[in-house]
Each structure stands twice: as C-alpha cells, then as structure tokens.
C-alpha cells in the first residue's frame, strides 16, 4: 500500500476481471497479453458457450470491454487492443 510509486495496472487483469464477471464459466476465461512497445494486444478466449456473452448483441459487450481497456491503457501512455479469439 502507498509506496509512492506509480500504480502499475495490469491490463490483463482488468480484461480478465471484466470477462470473468459476465460469462457463465469464469474459470475458462484466458487472456493473453502481447506487448509491442506502447501497444498491447489482449487476446480473450472463453468457453465456447460463452462467446455470445463476451461479444453481445451487435458486439455491444465487446465494445464496452474495449472502451474501458483502452481508457485505462491510455492513462498509462499505452494503446490497447482487445480481441476475442476462439
């Protein structure tokens, strides 16, 4: 707590937290983080039956996850891309 150092936010933990809380099988949620300089790709995979849940109607859920992840990344001077993979 309060070491005075800048708080390190793990984007992977963030995306994983979001995904786990909206699927039926949270244990099956995997997030792979691929860093390339200031860009971060977050690959999310979930149980087959939960695909629709993380994408949502018209991709609305995926878009919300992206928005929150991007905002958080921007705050750290990074660019985040969230991809949902099979």
């Amino acid at each position: 707590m309060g070491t005075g150092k800048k708080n390190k936010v793990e984007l992977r933990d963030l995306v994983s937290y979001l995904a786990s809380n909206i699927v039926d099988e949270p244990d099956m949620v995997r997030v792979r983080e691929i860093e390339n300089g200031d860009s971060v790709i977050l690959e999310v995979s979930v149980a087959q039956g939960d695909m629709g849940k993380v994408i949502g109607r018209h991709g609305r859920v995926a878009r919300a996850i992206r928005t929150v992840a991007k905002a958080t990344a921007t705050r750290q001077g990074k660019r985040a891309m969230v991809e949902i993979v099979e």
Partner: protein
Amino acid sequence: MKPIEVTGKTVDEAVQAGLSSLGLGKEQVEIEVIDEGSRGFLGLVGMRHARVRMGPLHADPTPTGDADAGRGSSEPRPTVVPRVPSEDSADSIRGRRSSVPGRAAGTGKMGADVGVSENDGLSRGARFLEGLVSVMGLDADVYEREADEVTMLEIEGKSLGVLIGRHGETLDSVQYLVNLAAGRAARAAGDEQRVRYVVDVAGYRKQREETLTEMAIEAAGKVIRDQRNQVLEPMSALERRIVHMALKDAEGVVTHSEGREPYRRIVISPGE
C-alpha cells in the same frame, strides 16, 4: 485555495468560468448552486443569471487542469464502500439545490430488496464496480444510494477523468458492464429481482443533464421561431430520455427519436 463565486448565463457557463479561473477540472471542484438562474420563457424574456460557488474538492496541492489527460499519479489504496455517503463527500458535490435522497429516501421498496441477499450489505453492482475501480488502479470510493427505480453508484476520488471519457463514453460502458455483471450474478443466485444501476463519477451525469436540458430548450426555441424540425446529435438512450423529459411539457413542440443505435437521434418538431 478559497471557494469563489461566479455567475453565467447558465449554471454550466458559470461552472465553466469558475473552472478556468481556478485552473481545475470538473472532477476536482465542489460546486454549490446558489441560483440556477432563469432563462425566462424559452430564453426570450425574464432572464436571470445563474450563480454558483465553487472551490477545490480535495486539499489537492497539484491542480492539473485536465483530469482526462492525467497520467494518474494515484497510489493504490484499498477501496472502501460505505453504504451511506458521508456528508462531505458524495453529497456535497451535488449542491444543496437538489434534495438528495439519503439512506431512507426513494420508494424504499427496492432499497430493502437490494442487499438482502448480499453477504456484506452491498449490492452486486456495487461490489463489481468496487472491484473494477480497484483493478483499474484508481484511487476512488464507490458509494451506493437508492433513487427512484434505480440504484445509484457514485464514484468519488482523484483523477477520475479516465472513467468518464469523451461525452461519457467510458462511463456508459462501465455502467453497461455493471448492469451486465450484476444481472449475471443475480441469475446465478436464482434472484429474479432486476436491479438497474446508474453509475456516476463526481457528479458528471448531473452536469451533463443540465447541459442537455439547456440545449433541448434552446433547440425548442428555434423550432418555435422557425417552425421547422431540429435534429439533434446522436445520443445514448439515457441522454435521449433526458431530452424527451426536458421538453415533455413544453408548449409548441413535440419530440421523437429517429435512426438506429448508436446514431439514434432526437427530432424536435413544431406541434401542440
């Protein structure tokens, strides 16, 4: 820094003027509306300027100006979620003008149901949001409050611009995810009760509501003058609702929405 008093044509303009003279962002100040002002009849006659008093919210020695741009020097701190907002934090920002429903306000019906099945007295939405704020590395607290038909989750803290985003885009996403996560948790627990959550950050929605209401009335005035339709910018369902409500009882205009999400927009037309 001492509180200052500013005036403007509207509350919004007064606040803007105050912010620039203080050099602070909206999230960093405490605003008390002394006089909402009066736009008279559709901004034509009987106008009175709005007056607000404002000062820094926290004893924060580093005014950064733009919270959105802040790289966030906040230290991690465990988020505490008091069930009832304390006098000096969540409530103060709304100003005395609005009668803030406290713990027992609202219908009471939903308030009693929320939390009953919870282990720590917090609603599912509040617990999810608390976790989200913490995993985002923000130095903030979540307050829960029952309002008409919805549960209000209010986030207070430092450098929270990141949670708002452009035109509240991030805030809307956060709110959507809170409702989704809470809904799933409720279903998993066999709870049929559907709770709708509204998430706000440092009074942002309140502020936005005032802006939209102003804009709606201005546009309605133009419709009446020109007797022609006015098409507004695309807005979210929540924002469109604010505009519809603002003009619900306005004479001489009717409102409806056109188009598909996310480009759905309000059209104000001449009418009774």
